[in-house]
């Protein structure tokens, strides 16, 4: 409706100005467009996604890829929509750019939205979002993180394709919605005994005919699915459109691309979806690989596994790299997180390049899939210092001391021990 209104206003203005055609024989632009193009050509986040803070670091405007500087990220226990990282898989201007905003979907869009549940089942069903909203809602507090978060640190060993994320491709969020697995059961779909995978697809479509769609498949035995919800709210509000509203599949502990936005299809299948965005990317090799010796084209279901759950990780929020703090007792703080299967049980900190380690206090009051806030206090004298942090989970899984050991051609899964250099004065 707005579009129609805009068009007519500008048509009028356009006709007014048309009489002033220049010697070139070209008609002038409507005045309002002329204002738009006077905007700075630098990729400002708010020009890419309406409602985003211009402090965001834009990695790819056409795909709406942006990350959060850590000095913003650390200020909020729950990451506000204005500064939450984003990554789309198809151009943000497709179909009128309807997703390019942090505003929620319109009432009409939400009312009319349906999810088709089908696949190898006897009775496919359609679910209305408006019906989901009437069901009992549960809350999940979980980390959302891009599988490429930290990719730029791999580049010390060898370049990879993809955006140069630092640590800001993540956030801590609350989600509210309807539990997935009980819902599937209640639909009485009559699944075939061969069903082993759930696949999910959203409303976004590739920009070229025959292009790969973003369809993700999860083994039904994955423990994280027991915690999954069809989410309608993020941080207490209807989900911002760019982050998947009106309905997004949220699987706490799984990397961002697995949490399908604008959910339209759930399919019970006997295998992973063949989409190239499932089979040719977002996969980690089982064995260590070297740059140029193993490429994304060498990836198969036999030698790689999809990037499902987060690799256990911790980062330093204070001090940040390059900051100067006062000599004496220095507070060291940050967050840790894990894959949604078992909790982080230990966070250790070193201020002497790993020769000795101090156990940090862990605040896990938001639950095991949320940020685990760690902190400790260390006496430091004036000079240059470095803090290292390393998390370990209940199964004894930890972070590699040298993150480069998991170098891989897509640059996924960075979870090396975070090392932050700062000054004490």
């Amino acid at each position, binding site marked *: 409706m*707005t*579009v129609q*209104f*805009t*068009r007519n206003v*500008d*048509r*009028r203005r356009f006709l007014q100005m048309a009489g002033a055609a220049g010697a*070139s*024989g*070209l*008609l002038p*632009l*409507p005045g*309002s*467009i002329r204002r*738009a*193009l006077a905007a700075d*050509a*630098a*990729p*400002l986040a708010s*020009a*890419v996604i*309406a409602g985003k803070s211009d402090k965001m670091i834009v*990695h*790819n*405007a*056409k*795909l*709406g890829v942006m990350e959060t500087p850590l000095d913003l990220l650390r200020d909020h226990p729950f990451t506000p929509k204005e500064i939450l990282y984003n990554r789309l898989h*198809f*151009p*943000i*201007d*497709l179909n*009128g*750019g309807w997703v*390019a905003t942090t505003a929620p979907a319109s009432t009409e869009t939400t009312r009319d939205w349906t999810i088709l549940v089908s696949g190898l089942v006897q009775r496919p069903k359609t679910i209305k979002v408006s019906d989901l909203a009437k069901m009992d809602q549960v809350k999940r507090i979980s980390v959302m993180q891009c599988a490429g978060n930290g990719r730029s640190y791999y580049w010390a060993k*060898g370049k*990879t*394709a*993809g955006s140069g994320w630092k640590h800001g491709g993540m956030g801590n969020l609350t989600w509210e919605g309807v539990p997935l697995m009980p819902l599937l059961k209640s639909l009485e779909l009559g699944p075939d005994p061969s069903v082993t995978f759930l696949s999910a697809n959203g409303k976004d479509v*590739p*920009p*070229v*005919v*025959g*292009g*790969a769609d973003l369809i993700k498949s999860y083994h039904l035995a994955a423990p994280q699915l027991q915690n999954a919800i069809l989410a309608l709210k993020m941080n207490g509000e209807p989900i911002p459109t760019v982050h998947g509203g009106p309905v997004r599949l949220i699987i706490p502990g799984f990397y961002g691309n697995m949490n399908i936005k604008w959910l339209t299809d759930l399919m019970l299948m006997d295998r992973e979806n063949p989409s*190239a*965005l499932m089979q*040719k*990317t977002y996969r980690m090799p089982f064995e260590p690989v070297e740059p*140029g*010796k193993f*490429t*994304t*084209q060498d990836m198969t279901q036999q030698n790689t596994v999809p990037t499902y759950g987060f690799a256990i990780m911790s980062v330093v929020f204070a001090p940040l790299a390059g900051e100067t703090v006062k000599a004496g007792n220095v507070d060291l703080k940050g967050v840790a997180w894990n894959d949604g299967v078992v909790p982080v049980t230990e966070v250790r900190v070193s201020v002497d390049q790993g020769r000795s380690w101090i156990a940090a206090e862990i605040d896990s009051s938001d639950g095991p899939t949320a940020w685990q806030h760690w902190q400790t206090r260390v006496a430091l004298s004036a000079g240059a210092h470095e803090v290292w942090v390393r998390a370990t989970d209940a199964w004894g899984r930890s972070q590699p001391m040298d993150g480069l050991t998991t170098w891989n*051609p897509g640059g996924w899964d960075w979870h090396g021990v975070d090392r932050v250099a700062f000054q004490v004065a």
Partner: protein
Amino acid sequence: MLAAAAIAWLSGPAAAEAAGITLPPGPGANLVYARCQTCHDLQYIVDAKGLLPAQWKSTLAGMKDYGLTISPADEATILAYLTTYLGPNPPPAAASSPASGATRMAGAATSGRHVFEENCSGCHGPEGAGQAGIYPALAGNADLAKDAGLPARVVLFGLTGPIEAGGASYTGTMPPFGHLGDADIAAVVNYVRSAWGNAAGAGSVDAKAIAALRAHPLTSSDVHKYRAALLSPPPR
């Protein structure tokens, strides 16, 4: 009301597309500009500078998996460009490398037909017939006659569907071709407006007119709105 409209224009997504990331000049760069911006902007390519040849080869193969359709010859040209100019050992940039715009300006006008065949025929067809539902026909396309500024801006800044043309709808994405020189763009605009029996309407454009349009970059969303404003029937 006008203010509301202006805000609507300003809030168009991806204003940064107009930022115009520049590739190192070299043979094949034009194909990268033409083929790679349908799905992502050039930042991805610039960020991947330093990939080993096997990695570039794999990356380009991956793009075909994701939907890129390309002739073997064009693929080889793009791969040679990427591995040479964005590989681990790129040739040193030419001393006093002229701004690409200057290079473009200096070139004598190529024939419009030649520019069309090299850059446009892949999607719009050698005879301008387009592809149903995706890329509109240029032959017999009456919209071209209304204002040369329309095809000129579409070529310079790109256009993403859906659009209506000749009573049919098209959903394709046209990347910006602003890397082409002003004279070449003027030539191809004049060509498509007069070829295949098209009636060019009000006059032809020259390089100077293209340069004037280039000086005020638009986003593809702005072009979409401008096109709608130009072509929509006047309000009653």
